[in-house]
């Protein structure tokens, strides 16, 4: 690729930071938070934000593309692309204003040209285009200024070079969407490595950048069939790392949004790979602390899967029950919301499989001291479809929830909850009066049995503890002789006491 560089461009020799042509600017102003953290301006030429080419020469405006005859168009296009591959320091907002303007104008023209002019995208310009895009967008994202960055609370750090970067993304997008665009040619340049770097950029804190990346990745997925499996695999790697290693990745919602539309397009029957993705990646994603940031997208993906293949329902619901939040009520409300979405599309044959554990959990939610959780759970009974499922299976569902509902109806501090529960109990009564009466009658008995059980349990453990002590004494006393060979276990079991 290096050899195809047009003469006008700068040789991309390894950078030597000492030769910075940018004049050292004044001390950074005191009021910008960013300026405190950022690299010193005089060194920003070796910034990991951007790797600058050395010997940066002055950019001079080139003639407009529309002003040259068709024969010279491509040569000029190449030169413009090369010009746009020159990087500028945006941390220092006054440095090289002229150069920045030239590049901005050139990018604008490129955006315009690739979007509207037919016949521009011929094979030789592909490598130049991809190189220009790569040089501009691929960079190691800077350390987050705020290590505890909370996407819901904090203002994101915006990308300083956005005036150029936006145009580059826009150009990339139009390039992909151009009717002249040929994936068969482009796939030589848009390869796995390219996609991997593109995915890494999704961690950008700047939502504007992630928005562009989302659309671009979607187009790439659509146009490059050969990269699809690879993109899916890398996405799941990102998610797994997010779940189990870092708990930090800014672009989860965006990636899930793309996946939502990918899942939508899966052919039936689903491949094992896809099912595995659901069970081992999407379901565990529910356990992440920052769930609220991407829950809508995640729930959409899950429901998409279930609409494709109803037999996955049991897996999904059991998975959700496994990861059910224990202390975070905000997440609990989200789980209940997602559960209702799932129940909306559930097949009755699947419902039967999970009704008992599911409704035990729902009952636990109803007894939550946080009234929003209780309320959200009780809203299930406002859903016609769910109600009909409950009615069809009332002999299982009612016993699962009755005890809790009955108890909570007497104890809950919040009047709204109490009256909602009364409504539910009334529905039960109307649904199956006989069963309701039986359950009411046996409620007291069950309570007593529970207490009895608890006593038995205590007794059991006490007995076990005694037995253990007896045994410990026995091991150490009577069996000393045969155990001589094994001093270790005696020591170990001794340590247990």
């Amino acid at each position, binding site marked *: 690729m290096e050899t195809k560089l047009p003469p006008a461009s700068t040789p991309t020799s390894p950078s030597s930071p000492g030769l910075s042509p940018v004049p050292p600017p004044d*001390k*950074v102003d005191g009021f910008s938070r960013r*300026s*405190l*953290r*950022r*690299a*010193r301006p005089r*060194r*920003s030429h*070796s*910034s*990991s*934000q951007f*790797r600058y080419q050395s010997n940066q020469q002055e950019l001079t405006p080139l003639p407009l593309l529309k002003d040259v005859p068709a024969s010279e168009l491509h040569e000029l296009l190449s030169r413009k692309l090369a010009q746009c591959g020159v990087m500028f320091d945006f941390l220092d907002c006054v440095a090289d204003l002229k150069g920045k303007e030239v590049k901005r104008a050139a990018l604008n023209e490129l955006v315009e040209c690739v979007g509207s002019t037919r016949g521009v995208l011929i094979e030789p310009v592909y490598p130049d285009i991809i190189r220009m895009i790569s040089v501009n967008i691929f960079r*190691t994202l*800077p*350390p987050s200024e705020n290590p505890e960055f909370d996407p819901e609370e904090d203002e994101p750090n915006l990308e300083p070079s956005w005036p150029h970067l936006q145009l580059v993304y826009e150009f990339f997008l139009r390039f992909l969407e151009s009717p002249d665009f040929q994936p068969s040619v482009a796939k030589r340049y848009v390869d796995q*490595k390219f996609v*991997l770097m593109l995915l890494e950029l999704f961690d950008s804190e700047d939502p504007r950048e992630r928005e562009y990346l989302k659309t671009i990745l979607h187009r790439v997925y659509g146009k490059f069939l050969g990269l699809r499996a690879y993109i899916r695999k890398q996405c799941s*790697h990102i998610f*797994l*790392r997010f779940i*189990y*290693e870092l708990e930090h990745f800014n672009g989860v919602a965006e990636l899930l949004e793309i996946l939502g539309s990918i899942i939508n397009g899966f052919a039936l029957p689903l491949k094992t790979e896809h099912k595995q993705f659901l069970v*081992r990646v999407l379901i*565990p994603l529910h356990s992440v602390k920052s769930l609220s940031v991407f829950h809508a997208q995640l729930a959409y993906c899950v429901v998409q899967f279930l609409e494709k293949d109803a037999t996955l329902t049991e897996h999904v619901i059991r998975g959700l029950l*496994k990861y059910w939040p224990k202390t975070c009520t905000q997440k609990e409300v989200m789980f209940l919301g997602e559960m209702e979405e799932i129940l909306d599309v559930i097949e009755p044959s699947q419902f039967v499989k999970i009704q008992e554990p599911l409704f035990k959990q729902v009952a636990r939610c109803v007894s939550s001291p946080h009234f929003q959780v209780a309320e959200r759970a009780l809203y299930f009974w406002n859903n016609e479809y769910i109600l009909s499922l409950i009615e069809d299976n009332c002999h299982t569902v009612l016993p699962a929830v009755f005890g809790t509902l009955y108890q909570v109806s007497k104890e809950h501090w919040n009047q709204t909850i109490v009256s909602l529960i009364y409504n539910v109990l009334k529905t039960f009564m109307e649904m199956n009066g006989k069963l309701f009466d039986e359950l009411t009658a046996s409620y007291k008995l069950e309570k007593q049995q529970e207490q009895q*059980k608890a006593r*038995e*349990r205590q007794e*059991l*453990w006490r*007995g*076990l*503890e005694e*037995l*253990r002590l*007896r*045994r*410990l004494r026995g091991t150490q006393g009577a069996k000393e002789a045969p155990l001589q060979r*094994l001093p*270790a*276990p*005696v*020591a*170990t*079991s001794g*340590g*247990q006491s």
Partner: protein
Amino acid sequence: MAGAAGPGTGPGAAGGDGDDSLYPIAVLIDELRNEDVQLRLNSIKKLSTIALALGVERTRTELLPFLTDTIYDEDEVLLALAEQLGNFTGLVGGPDFAHCLLPPLESLATVEETVVRDKAVESLRQISQEHTPIALEAHFVPLVKRLASGDWFTSRTSACGLFSVCYPRASNAVKAEIRQHFRSLCSDDTPMVRRAAASKLGEFAKVLELDSVKSEIVPLFTNLASDEQDSVRLLAVEACVSIAQLLSQEDLEALVMPTLRQAAEDKSWRVRYMVADKFSELQKAVGPKITLNDLIPAFQNLLKDCEAEVRAAAAHKVKELCENLPPEGRETIIMNQILPFIKELVSDTNQHVKSALASVIMGLSTILGKENTIEHLLPLFLAQLKDECPEVRLNIISNLDCVNEVIGIRQLSQSLLPAIVELAEDAKWRVRLAIIEYMPLLAGQLGVQFFDEKLNSLCMAWLVDHVYAIREAATNNLMKLVKKFGTEWAQNTIVPKVLVMASDPNYLHRMTTLFCINALSEACGQEITTKQMLPIVLKMAGDQVANVRFNVAKSLQKIGPILDTDALQEEVKPVLQKLGQDEDVDVKYFAQEALSAVAQRLRKLDSPAKDGEEPSAPGADKNHFLRPGGPGEDTGKAHRERAARVVSEEAVEAARFRGTDAAKGPAYQLHVNTRDTLAQLEIAELVHFSQSRD
């Protein structure tokens, strides 16, 4: 019900061996399956009890298979299980049977949740040591191989941590297989596995034969260090430390250094950060020669890195790096190759970088000696003492002792003083608090005279700070100063000033006097306490403000042990008795508490001589004090009331400061209505003033 059936069938079935059959495994298993997670968790945590009750044989044949089969539970339960099994060898019959524990642990090592997996690996590592070499090859190594070729990344990740424990005791043929498996994990398709392998690379290298290290580990290291993901590359830097320790200088130069150089210039700041963070370890591992040729230039680059994170990490290592240089030529290297870069960092734009440097830079003075310190370092210290960021100044001041040993602190005192004064008056109370804590240290180094001239007034000023935490720290500070400079000094300089505050119009200042007396009395000794402090305290018992009065009671209780019998009997007790009749409930309460403490003390002092004559004296008060019914409730209420009152009084105080009638002492009609005045409370920091330190 299993529970009911158990005891019934047990005795009949097992006959003579009654113990075992009392609790059939079904009952225990029933517990392990309980619907309530907490109960399951409890059962698992008592797994050793169950096992011991069952005996080794039934543990092996019944309990372990059950555990292996039913591993699908809450992660919390699994975590407890994984931990328990690590200590189970004795419970299954000793090392000969240790392999029985492998199946459940193998399953646990493949679950999704990282903490469970890690714990399972930890337990497996523990158990591996208990295996005989034969059992290790027959059971443990096959397990490692199975995990290493598992189809989901979790099992392969877990396998990475097990190679180094089974390798040393395996036969040569098996060793080759183990290496082969490790190699393939290093180039695994999943980055999670590569990260796990990279993080265990150093550990594995240590147990390998040197030839294998050179022929196999080094290539793996090189590959991981140029992985496409920076999260893998940075772990290779960690491995580099271990690998470098194993190789000769020549091999190092040829095999490791190219990779390390590349890592120090990696395009990802995370990798460069790692190099900076591990710099001292790397330096020790590669030895002095390579340090001079390679690491010093790399370090220079890290010190001027474009990312502040990297510069700060490097700045932290400056002192260690210099210390670890070989003594001959060290000075020249530091002066020529390190110092110029440090000088630039002193004026870095990022405060974290500056503060990282400030926390170690003073350490250089011992290495460079007196002359260099005065000529080169001193200007830097002085510049940092004037830094705009308080943290930088604080870091310098907190390390003054390093410089003190070399050039004495006097050289700095010119700049030190303004810096201290500025910090002492910083708008952030936490900064003021931090500098107060260094005062005793500074006092020791600067000497009495300098202190009296320059710093004494600061210490006194803090006593009237508007933040309680500062006033509190200031009193403690005085106590430490007295311990340092002695009682005579206290008597001449501190005590008079403190006592003057007792007649301050501001009741908070009056209370500060009491707090100071609490803190100082012990350090000052009986004479000063009795002659100078006690009269003031007693006089304050007539204060208008209830808070002052009950603090008088508290103070009297506090200084009681220092006073002699006469003072207690004749001066303290009457006053306390009077306070015990106070109209304010809190004053009463504390007075009575103090009285009983004083009475106890008197009893102790008198007991050898006149036994039981006096103690009944405060009889009237005693009834009050003993408060037979619900004292807890009373105290709670009192506390609350007191807190409310304090707040309202603060508000009055604040209001008074704003007004012009500062001279009008009796502005406080105390017991101000809290609700009316709370609204005026606009100084949030006042909330720190709290009376809950009993």
